[in-house]
C-alpha cells in the first residue's frame, strides 16, 4: 500500500498496532491517523467501549483477563500478525521497556517503535546505566555501582560502604521504577532491615531482588531531558522538564522549561543526557533523568527508554509531535531538520508549558484510588489548552489499571500566563461520579511557592495539608444542597422560597436567578471567582 496523507507525504508505515490503552493509546492512534497510517487498537473486555478502541481503524480483543491483557506479549504479536501490522507502538508502562517484547516483535518481522532490545536491556538494569554514565564522565548520584549484598554475614562490609556514601541514603531496586523497592535509610541501624525489605519488594515487583545504595540528595529537583535518536547514532536533546511536584515518587505535575534554570545548567544537562544516550546506543525516544541541586549541580539518575507520560509539555514548547517523530525514526528515517532546529533552540525556550495529571484519586485521603462511574466529564478548552483523555462520560473507571484519567496541558508565552491559564482551565473542568485530583491542582496553581518556581521534591509532603481547604468546600456544598432542596419542589422538602421575595436574592452575574437555577437541567453553576 502506498497511501499518502492529504499533504502528499508517504506514511512511515502502512499499519501500526498500538499495544496500550487509555489516553496514550488514543494519542498514538491520533498520530497514526494524521500520518495516514492504519491503526490497530487492542483491548481487554472492560475496555471494549473505550475511546481508544473506537478511534482506531481496527480493534482486536485481548480477552477477558484485565490483569494479563496488555502484558500478554504472545497475544499482542498474534494480533499484530492478524491485522497485518508492520510495526508495534508500546506507549508507556506495560511492555514498553521489556527487551523480550522488543525482541519478539523483531523476530516476528514487526518494527518495535522504541530503542533496540539490547538498549532496553542495558537501561532497564539501573546499575548498568549508572556504570555507562560514569564511563562517559557524567556525574552520577554517589552510591554503589554493583548490587549490594543483603545477607547478614556481609553486613559489616556494606555498612562501611554506606558510611563512605553518607547518610541519609536510599536503597533502590536495580530493576526498579515508580518508587517500588525503594527505602530511605537515616542511620546504620536501619540499613540491614531496609536492604531486606527493599530486596523482597523488588523481587515481588520485578522478579529481581537486586538493590543498590544511593545518596539521598536533599533539597533537589527532578529535571529530565527529552531525547530523540536515529539509527545512525545521532541524538538530539529537545529540552528539559521539571517534575519535582511528586508524591511518593509519583509525578503529579510536569513543566517545561524548568523554572529558574540558567542556560548554562540547561546546556550541561543536555550534554550529559546526549553523552549517556550515545554510550548506550539510544535510538528513537527516551528521557534522561537528573537531580538538580539549588547550586545548579546535577546528578544523573536513569534513562527511561520510551515515550513519557509527560512528553506533551515538550511538544507544546518545541512545536514538534514526538509520536510522529518516533514513527519516522522507527521506519529508519534520519533525525529531521525540524528536530535538529528544535534541538538548537532548546536551551533558550520562548514559551512555557505545564501539565497536571487528572487521576481517579482522592487528594484528601492520601491520594487513595477512587474507582467508579464517570457520570459527567466536561473538559476545558480554549486558547493554549490541550487535554489528552482516555475517558468520557459513562466510562467505568475500574480498579485494574492506572488511575490516570487525563492530562491537562497549558501553554503560554511565559510562566505566569501559563499558571493563570492553568487555573482558568481547571475551573472549567466539570467531573461527576468520582473524586479526582483536581482540588490538588487548583491549590497548586494558586500556591505562592509554586508560583515563584523551583520547588523541590519534598514540596508535596511538606505543603499539602488539605483538611481546611476541603472543609471549606464541604461547608459550601452543604449550603448549596440546602438551597437546591428548598428550590426544587418535588421530593419532600418544603418549597417556600421564590426568587426575590425579600430583595435578598444572591448576586448572580450569570443571571440564572434562584427560581430558574434549580430547573436548568438540574444543574446550577455558581459564579467563578
Amino acid at each position: 500500500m502506498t497511501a499518502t496523507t492529504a499533504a502528499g507525504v508517504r506514511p512511515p508505515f502502512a499499519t501500526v498496532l498500538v499495544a496500550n490503552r487509555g489516553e496514550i493509546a488514543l494519542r498514538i492512534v491520533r498520530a497514526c491517523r494524521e500520518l495516514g497510517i492504519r491503526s490497530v487498537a487492542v483491548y481487554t473486555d472492560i475496555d471494549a467501549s473505550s475511546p481508544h478502541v473506537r478511534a482506531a481503524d481496527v480493534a482486536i480483543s485481548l480477552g477477558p483477563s484485565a490483569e494479563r491483557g496488555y502484558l500478554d506479549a504472545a497475544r499482542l504479536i498474534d494480533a499484530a500478525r492478524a491485522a497485518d501490522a508492520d510495526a508495534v507502538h508500546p506507549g508507556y508502562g506495560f511492555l514498553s521497556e521489556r527487551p523480550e517484547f522488543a525482541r519478539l516483535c523483531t523476530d516476528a518481522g514487526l518494527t518495535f517503535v522504541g530503542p533496540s532490545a539490547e538498549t532496553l536491556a542495558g537501561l532497564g538494569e539501573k546499575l548498568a546505566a549508572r556504570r555507562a554514565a560514569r564511563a562517559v564522565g557524567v556525574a552520577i548520584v554517589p552510591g554503589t555501582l554493583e548490587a549490594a549484598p543483603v545477607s547478614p554475614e556481609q553486613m559489616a562490609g556494606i555498612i562501611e560502604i554506606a558510611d563512605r556514601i553518607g547518610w541519609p541514603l536510599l536503597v533502590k531496586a536495580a530493576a526498579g521504577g515508580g518508587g517500588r523497592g525503594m527505602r530511605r535509610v537515616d542511620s546504620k541501624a536501619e540499613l540491614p532491615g531496609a536492604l531486606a525489605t527493599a530486596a523482597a519488594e523488588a523481587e515481588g515487583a520485578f522478579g529481581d531482588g537486586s538493590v543498590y545504595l544511593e545518596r539521598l540528595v536533599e533539597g533537589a529537583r527532578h529535571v529530565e531531558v527529552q531525547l530523540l535518536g536515529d539509527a545512525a547514532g545521532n541524538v538530539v536533546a529537545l529540552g528539559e522538564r521539571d517534575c519535582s511536584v511528586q508524591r511518593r515518587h509519583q509525578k503529579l505535575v510536569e513543566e517545561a522549561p524548568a523554572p529558574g534554570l540558567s542556560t548554562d545548567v540547561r546546556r550541561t544537562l543536555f550534554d550529559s543526557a546526549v553523552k549517556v544516550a550515545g554510550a548506550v546506543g539510544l535510538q528513537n525516544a527516551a528521557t534522561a533523568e537528573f537531580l538538580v541541586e539549588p547550586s545548579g549541580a546535577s546528578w544523573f539518575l536513569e534513562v527511561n527508554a520510551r515515550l513519557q507520560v509527560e512528553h506533551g509539555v515538550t511538544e507544546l514548547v518545541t512545536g514538534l509531535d514526538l509520536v510522529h517523530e518516533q514513527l519516522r525514526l522507527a521506519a529508519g528515517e534520519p533525525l529531521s531538520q525540524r528536530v535538529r532546529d528544535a534541538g538548537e533552540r532548546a536551551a533558550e525556550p520562548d514559551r512555557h508549558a505545564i501539565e497536571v495529571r487528572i487521576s481517579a484519586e482522592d487528594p484528601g485521603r492520601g491520594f487513595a484510588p477512587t474507582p467508579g462511574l464517570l457520570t459527567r466529564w466536561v473538559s476545558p478548552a480554549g486558547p493554549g489548552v490541550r487535554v489528552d483523555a482516555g475517558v468520557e462520560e459513562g466510562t467505568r473507571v475500574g480498579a485494574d489499571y492506572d488511575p490516570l484519567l487525563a492530562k491537562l496541558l497549558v501553554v503560554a508565552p511565559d510562566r505566569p500566563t501559563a499558571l493563570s491559564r492553568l487555573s482558568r482551565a481547571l475551573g472549567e473542568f466539570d467531573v461527576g461520579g468520582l473524586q479526582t485530583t483536581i482540588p490538588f491542582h487548583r491549590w497548586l496553581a494558586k500556591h505562592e511557592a509554586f508560583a515563584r518556581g523551583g520547588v523541590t521534591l519534598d514540596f508535596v509532603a511538606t505543603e499539602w495539608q488539605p483538611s481546611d481547604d476541603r472543609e471549606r468546600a464541604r461547608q459550601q456544598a452543604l449550603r448549596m444542597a440546602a438551597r437546591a432542596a428548598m428550590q426544587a419542589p418535588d421530593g419532600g422538602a418544603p418549597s417556600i422560597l421564590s426568587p426575590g421575595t425579600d430583595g435578598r436574592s444572591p448576586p448572580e452575574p450569570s443571571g440564572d436567578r434562584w427560581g430558574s437555577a434549580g430547573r436548568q437541567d438540574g444543574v446550577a453553576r455558581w459564579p467563578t471567582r
Partner: protein
Amino acid sequence: MADAVTAADAMDGMTPLIRVATETDEPLELTMDELLALSDDRDPATIRPLDLRAGDRAAGIRRWEVVVDGWRFEVMSEDARRARLRDRARKGGASAGSHSRVTVRAQIPGRITRLFVQAGEGVEQGAPLLGVEAMKMENEVRSPRAGTIGRVLVSAGDRVELGQELVVVE
C-alpha cells in the same frame, strides 16, 4: 394551617429549615438567613440531584452530588423538623448492646492483600486492620475506633466490592 405557621416561623431567619449532611461528617442545619448568605460561595461549583436510595422517598430524604473547587461530596438533605423527630424516636428506641458495634466496609473495590488482625484481638483507634490493593496501590484500612475485633469477614486474596463488609469492631 400548621404549615402556614411553620413557614412564617422559618422566615424569621432563626428557625432551622433544612438539615444537610455528608456521610462522614457532622450534619448541618440551616436557617433562612444562612441559606441566603452567599458571601463565601465563590468557588467554581456544580450541583446535581443523585438517585434516591431505598427508603429515601418515604423518609423525605433527597441526595445531591456537589463539587466545589474540585472537591466532590454526596450530600443528603431533609426537612430539619422531620430529622429532629426521627432523631428523638431513634434515641428512645436504641437497644443496648448494638450501639457500640461498627462494621468496617470497603471504601474501594479491590483485593485483600493482608490481614493485620484476627477475631478477639483488641485494637486502638486508627490501628491498621487490613490492606486492600486497588489500581496497583496498597491501601491500609484502619479501625474507626478502639475496641475488640468481633469478626473478620474476608481473607487475604479475596476480591471485595465497594461497600462490602470487612471487619466488625465491637
